[in-house]
């Protein structure tokens, strides 16, 4: 039973991954990635990582992917124009990835599995056991994570605010946000 679930989920994940790379419209790539994440969450559940499963669905397939969809809807359907400026990029990347997969295959042959810690798998990966680890041993990394999220939120607000010298249609001087503005009227989207 678990073997069938694994192979179905793995097939869905790989097909979704191919879709992410192969679809030409970004919105289809995003929807394929949602498929990959749902399949991976099923696999997390197989690996008795219940909390990671829930977070994967809520944060990844929910929040992050909705953010991507929102940005695609904001920017409009951009299509890719054929080839880029670098010649042989496709062939070179194919060679690179084949080498990478060969390297990972070789590493998989030589994995030295350690004797597992012997814990009760009935409570493995539950919210309670995750929280014990997160709030005792890994308290400082956990707090640093919240700091990281704060920095990311501030950075996103700073990057996406409306510039005043941009308002009369002319492009701004550089790529960076103009300094010294802010205040005034609340930002409104164009």
């Amino acid at each position: 039973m678990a073997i069938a679930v694994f192979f179905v989920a793995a097939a869905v994940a790989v097909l979704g991954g191919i879709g992410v790379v192969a679809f030409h419209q970004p919105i289809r790539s995003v929807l394929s990635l949602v498929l990959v994440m749902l399949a991976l969450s099923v696999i997390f559940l197989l690996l008795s990582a219940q909390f990671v499963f829930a977070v994967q669905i809520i944060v990844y397939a929910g929040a992050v992917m909705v953010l991507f969809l929102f940005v695609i809807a904001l920017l409009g359907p951009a299509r890719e124009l054929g080839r880029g400026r670098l010649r042989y990029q496709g062939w070179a990347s194919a060679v690179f990835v084949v080498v990478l997969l060969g390297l990972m295959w070789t590493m998989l042959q030589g994995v030295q599995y350690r004797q597992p810690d012997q814990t009760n798998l009935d409570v493995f990966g539950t919210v309670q056991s995750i929280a014990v680890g997160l709030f005792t041993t890994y308290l400082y990394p956990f707090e640093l994570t919240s700091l990281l999220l704060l920095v990311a939120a501030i950075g996103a607000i700073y990057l996406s605010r409306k510039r005043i010298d941009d308002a009369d249609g002319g492009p701004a001087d550089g790529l960076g946000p103009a300094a010294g503005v802010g205040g005034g009227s609340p930002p409104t989207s164009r």
Partner: protein
Amino acid sequence: MARPPAWGEGLPPLPDKLSTLNIGGSELDASWFLLLSAVLFGLGAVGVLVRRNPLVILICIELMLNAVNLTLVTFSRQLQNLDGQLFALMSLTVAAAEAVVGLGILVDIFRLREVEDVDELSELHG
């Protein structure tokens, strides 16, 4: 807070091979999960290398981060040690922050001009 009971109190015995995971009565091998993770990571790498749209490149980076998460959770299950899952949660947070900042930069660039190819953004090439 009740500590989990020690090994040996009515728990099933360990499988013979260390990489075998006993999941719901069936025996799966940890290397299957690692192989799936490697394939997904390779697909993401292909996407980053061959796609031209910056948005799709960000999506492919998310795919690679997901593949790494699968590796972490797999080894966590094999070692029966929760540290791998905690690290997967951390990397998930980092991925979310990275998506937010990356999309913010992208929207900011798209305000100035339409970008259909990341090679057009080469003003800083020195």
